């Protein structure tokens, strides 16, 4: 679509024999928060760095705000792209104060002092303006990095694994702070992450990347509910897989006849999420055996084995102690299952 804030077409990049990105397409609508999700080494950081202009693609094109910044004949250096970036290690200038860091990118024709004050307000660091980066906590450094990237009013901002350097307790709070700040400014943003929970909970759109390609793009619930293939299903959230045969919307497998999301005929792989697998302790066909229990507090994961040897997992809310290892139970799939032709 023509109204994209960021558009990438057929981006390719190899480093020696390593293919880091291959035919990457990306359309990010204005004011969208997009998560570029993938395992480490899948090429997502390379895509980000191509957008920022630190890596020159071998082929393909990028346009930002409708303006082409790179294609076969065009090359715009990073400083002319009007793209902000928050680095994984923040990359704050250690010899400058917080205010100088934030003011670094503001153009001379702008009212620097006013803009710096605005940004400090936005991220809530007014009292830290004269501190140096090493005197700040990880979360504060993160906010300075964000303010510095936003200060020149960029067309979009890129965040590279922005929460990976924070400890678990801080991460949850900083995540929502960052999302609120980005919502407030209405800026288009892309963030790279390997954490599917982070991607699903924060982003408006999730682009799943594997082996240098983007394999699926969509809103979080869609990517979770209707993964494009088996690999995406396995990567995003927990998944149970069973072999089966589809006949239209019906699919036969070891658990009997299930309802499928899609029409298909022939051999398939059936996928359903652990929270859709219900356990009936005293049901009729008690064919599944409980092999392990993992208690997480808010829920628990029950590991089951079927007579064929296939293993399944069921996620239950609360009720610890209801099941024991070795217990025979019957199971049922609650929602329509996803099928992948095999």
């Amino acid at each position: 679509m023509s109204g994209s804030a960021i558009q990438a077409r057929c981006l390719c990049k190899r480093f020696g024999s390593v293919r880091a990105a291959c035919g990457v397409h990306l359309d990010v609508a204005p004011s969208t928060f997009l998560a570029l999700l993938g395992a480490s080494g899948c090429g997502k950081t390379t895509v980000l760095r191509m957008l920022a202009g630190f890596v020159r693609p071998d082929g393909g094109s990028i346009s930002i705000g409708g303006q082409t910044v790179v294609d076969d004949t065009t090359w715009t250096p990073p400083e002319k792209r009007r793209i902000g970036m928050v680095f994984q290690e923040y990359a704050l200038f250690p010899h400058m104060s917080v205010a100088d860091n934030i003011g670094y990118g503001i153009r001379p024709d702008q009212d620097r002092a006013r803009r710096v004050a605005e940004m400090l307000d936005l991220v809530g660091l007014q009292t830290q303006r004269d501190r140096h980066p090493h005197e700040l906590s990880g979360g504060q450094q993160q906010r300075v990095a964000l303010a510095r990237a936003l200060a020149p009013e960029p067309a979009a901002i890129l965040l590279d694994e922005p929460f990976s350097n924070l400890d678990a307790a801080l991460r949850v709070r900083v995540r929502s702070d960052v999302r609120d700040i980005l919502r407030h400014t209405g800026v288009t943003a892309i963030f790279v992450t390997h954490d599917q929970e982070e991607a699903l909970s924060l982003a408006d759109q999730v682009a799943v990347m594997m082996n240098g390609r983007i394999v699926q793009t969509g809103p979080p619930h869609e990517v979770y509910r209707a993964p494009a293939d088996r690999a995406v299903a396995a990567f995003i959230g927990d998944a149970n897989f069973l072999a089966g045969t589809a006949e239209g919307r019906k699919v036969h497998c070891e658990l009997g006849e299930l309802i499928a999301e899609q029409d298909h005929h022939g051999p398939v792989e059936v996928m359903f999420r652990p929270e859709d697998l219900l356990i009936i302790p005293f049901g009729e066909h008690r064919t599944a055996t409980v092999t392990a229990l993992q208690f997480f507090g808010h829920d628990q994961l029950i590991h089951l084995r079927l007579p064929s040897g296939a293993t399944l997992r069921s996620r239950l809310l609360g009720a610890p102690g209801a099941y024991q290892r070795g217990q025979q139970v019957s199971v049922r799939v609650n929602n329509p299952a996803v099928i992948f032709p095999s």
Partner: protein
Amino acid sequence: MATPGLSADATPEHPELRRRAPIGLRLFAGAIGLAVLLPLVYLLIRAGETGHRFWDIAGRDETLHVLWNSAVLTLLVTASSTVIGVVLAWLTVRTDLPGRTTWAVITCLPLVLPSYVGAFALIGAFSSNGLLAPLFALFGLDRPPRLYGLPGAWLTLTLFSYPYVMLTVRSGLRSLDPALADAARSLGHPPWRIARDITWPHLKPSVQAGSLLVALYTLSDFGAVSMLQFNSFTRAIFVYYRTSFDRSAPAVLALMLVALTLLILWIESRTRGSAKLYRAGVGAPRPASRVPLRLWRFPALLACTVITLLGLVLPLAVIAFWLLQGWTAGEPLWRGWSMVVHSVQAGLWAAGITVAAALPVAWLAVRFPGRTARLTEKAAYAGHALPSIMIALSLVFWAARYAPALYQSFALLIFAYACRFLPEALGSVRAALGTVSPRLEEAGRNLGRGPWSVLASITLPLLRPGLLTGFALVFLTTMKELPLTLLLAPTGFDTLATRIWSATEDALYAQAAAPALVLVAVSGIFVGVILNQEEQDDVYE
């Protein structure tokens, strides 16, 4: 805590770091690497010109004698320096020696003195009318024992080079994780096995690094062996050069000296273990418990005192003694300011040019690791292995034949200093650049600044401490440098170093004392500044 994970080589295996350097940078850095190798290349050419005579000269009895002398001196000095250095390091780091921090500083100080000042001190103390003459008279000796030759050279070079071992071993001991020894203890091993199996393998690299420095220092030293008339390579080369018109003999000898140096480097690299040694945990290691010395502290204190007396107090006392002697005799002690001006002038130029040359080489090595960078860096480090006398000789030969205008010119002198001292500047510039993450420069670009603006506002300010340290190191070593200055300085360009040399040669000890004092004072101030700088860097990190 500082910004987490910010280091230039955070992901060295990341393929992106294998990108190619800009062609301009590669050419510039490569040219510097080649320039440093020029003296060696020209020496090879000159030695090659001797043809069949090469082997005649190399096989002469005198030559073999010189080779033997150099080898013996190097072995003796390295052995004694290693023993003294390791013992002092252990005493000052791991025991309850009274006043160990003070001893650590005091016993490092001889590093400040150039070897020829040490030799001058020894000669001045043991000459028939010297400082120690009354002492020997007490024992009924009408003249002190002569310390010329091997004993004098051995003593002097040991006293001024053991701090290299001590410093490296100290840092090795301090970074040793006591948790490893504790683990071995908990597994029931007796202390001697812990020392053999745990402590020694971890300490070996630092002992070896220090010993290597001492061996290279000894082999390339010119001042002490010349003044003490010990016929090792450097002195023999100089004597040949001064006394005969035959250019072949010194060229062949200089080449043999280079070969001996390379042999030592080769042996060292072969015996250096390839195992990576780790600390057990993350974070700063817990300080190790100290070994109580009990009654052993008296011999330990005595050893520290004797070494300080010989290495530090004696040279200073001799300088003071001869100043006093000269003053009471009404001799002219001070030959004007020109030698100070010349020393400072040479030091400033050499330091400026050398640091400027180190910058592109370090940039290439840190930011664009690869084959070009490795080769360039290796070449640039060659100065470490090339003795001054060899560089000087090669440049004199070259200029005399091809560029008479450059012969004994200031420019050629500075070029020689830069060749010799590039490694020192490179070391500190490289280390500083390694701490400036390329992400910082990218952040600057990303915020709308061009590459040159980023260089000026981000990279250079962050590099400043490293550049200053490199500058100070080169300035200091240039001021102390004797053979390069002696052979290459323009006529009439006397420096502190050459004045001390010529006055001692002529047995005018009183006239050597004043410049020696100035040199020691300047060196002391500079070393203080450098150490202080490093301490601040530590605090910052």
